[in-house]
């Protein structure tokens, strides 16, 4: 591991945008993502003009952690709420933070249409291949053969279809400005994730349009693994199906 990457983790600067200890399970990816999102907000100096849309799922209490205005919204509807917020308050920064059940199942219509309209908002999409808050049920992103409480013998494509690839789907649309998939399983990837999140926000500040960062996150509790095993699962299983890459980048395109 490069020294510089390790420093970023160990240094852990005081984050102004990020408050309180989180309620997340030990080893959960949300805490890391919250921290780096707070970092990015601080570095861009946007917390006082940010309107954060909290969706239903494990991250529903995000309003306890980010020092900015918040709207807690119905399951899956964050992109519709964010659309109105941004259009009525165009000088503010609008962030939605959504899980895979929220964004890729119950809120599929909202995310596709917000992306298709090219709304100038930033979506942080947490893909941990499971429903966390409700206790580990099948998600649209659950991998083939992966077990969940509603697929106790594993997910089979014949019954539940294949895991949804959101970045790839949205990449078929013309309007989105920035789409990237990142992961949180080691310091290097955490650093890359931080850069992606910051870039997504910068795209919004510049008025470039719709930006989404899909974050492959680990859920040791519901995957019934140790934190270490869960990070290994992301690296070895999830990343194979959900390749980490920049799908769309129009930062410098007029």
């Amino acid at each position: 591991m490069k020294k510089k990457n390790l420093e970023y983790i160990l240094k852990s600067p005081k984050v102004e945008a990020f408050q309180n200890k989180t309620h997340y399970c030990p080893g959960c990816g949300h805490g890391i993502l919250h921290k780096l999102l707070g970092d990015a907000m601080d570095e861009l100096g946007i917390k006082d003009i940010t309107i954060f849309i909290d969706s239903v799922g494990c991250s529903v209490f995000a309003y306890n952690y980010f020092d900015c205005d918040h709207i807690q919204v119905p399951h899956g509807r964050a992109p519709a709420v964010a659309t109105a917020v941004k259009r009525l308050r165009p000088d503010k920064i609008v962030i939605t933070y959504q899980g895979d059940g929220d964004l890729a199942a119950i809120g599929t219509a909202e995310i596709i249409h917000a992306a298709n309209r090219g709304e100038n908002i930033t979506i942080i999409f947490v893909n941990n291949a499971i429903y966390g808050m409700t206790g580990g049920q099948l998600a649209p992103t659950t991998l083939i053969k992966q077990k969940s409480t509603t697929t106790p013998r594993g997910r089979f494509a014949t019954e539940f279809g294949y895991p949804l690839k959101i970045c790839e789907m949205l990449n078929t649309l013309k309007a989105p400005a920035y789409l990237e998939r990142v992961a949180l399983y080691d310091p290097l990837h955490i650093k890359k994730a931080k850069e992606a999140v910051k870039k997504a926000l910068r795209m919004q500040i510049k008025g470039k349009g719709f930006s989404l960062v899909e974050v492959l996150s680990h859920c040791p509790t519901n995957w019934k693994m140790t934190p270490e095993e869960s990070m290994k699962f992301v690296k070895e299983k999830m990343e194979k199906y959900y390749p980490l890459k920049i799908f769309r980048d129009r930062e410098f395109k007029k």
Partner: protein
Amino acid sequence: MKKNLENKIEKILIKGNDAVVEAALRSGLNGFFGYPITPASEIIEGFAKAYYEDLERKKKGLKPKYPEFQVFLQMESEIASINAALGGAATGKRVLTASSSPGISLKQEGISYIAGCELPVAIIDVMRGGPGLGNIAPEQGDYFQTVKGGGHGDYRLITLAPNSVQELAEFTCEIFELADKYRNPAVLLYDGYLGQMKEGVIFPKVKAKNYDRSSWAADGNKKGREKHIITSIYIAPEDMEKHKLRLKRKYDLIEEKEVRFENYKSDDADIVIVAYGIVSRIAKDVVEKARKEGIKVGLLRPITLWPFPKKEISQIADNAKAILTVELNMLGQMNEDVLISANGKCPVEFYGRCGGVIPKEKEILEKILEINRKVK
């Protein structure tokens, strides 16, 4: 000369749904979010027209007609529309969404959240036939889903029921004010007939009160203050109960202050018709016809369906020999509230037509004669 022109009272012949659009724009509407549905589509079309005409005016360097009207957006669904309205209101803007019965069913989850978050959202429901796809003919089948909640959890929606295009215009302005005054969703509920009929309207001179929403809105103006959180989640049972008791106190205050009704000759009446919306206009003629036949009939027209004029109907039940509720539905949805208000003090009968069929004066009069024979 100029002053005279300004003071001129302008009466316009206008369709119900179009009057709603005009009145909303005059009320300082900031954002409209909707989805097309018959018989409410003129509303979304009207806002689109106003919005793009103003855009053209701005392009030409002219003053926009409705400078406060910032956003018009046709959303991908009814669900997205109500949630966009939630978002707009949460940031402290004046917003509206409009639909018809099946669309309102889809919006119910969002309406429940809006009530829980205490957001001032104005909602329009142009009622059509149901259940299911039903038809596009007028009915009064949404009394339950509006007055009794419709979404999950216990909450109340302020509901105004106009009976003319003039009132459609006036009450559109009113629902914005009531929504802001109480930080509660407010609904304008009317049947498809009113939406589609044309009548002369004098638009009220609206002077929107300047509600200061900055003390609570998630408007992203956080500098120098604590963060604002708009939410309906209260995990601890004690906190949830506290939140709900506060809502209850608000609902009690609305019930105390905002009941509206029209009492037409019911003080000396032996039989009182209770009807709202288009039916109340037919009922008024029935009152006259019955009185010509020597039967003292009156009309009590609830204008606010919630808060419901309970006390007034209770008083009528004290003095009248019978009450007849007439509605455009088969169940007698409002009649349940009439029965509760009358509390067994006098017989309450129900007459309903549905599916888009309107009761004729003659039918209602026959029902009155029948009741008159019974209670004599």
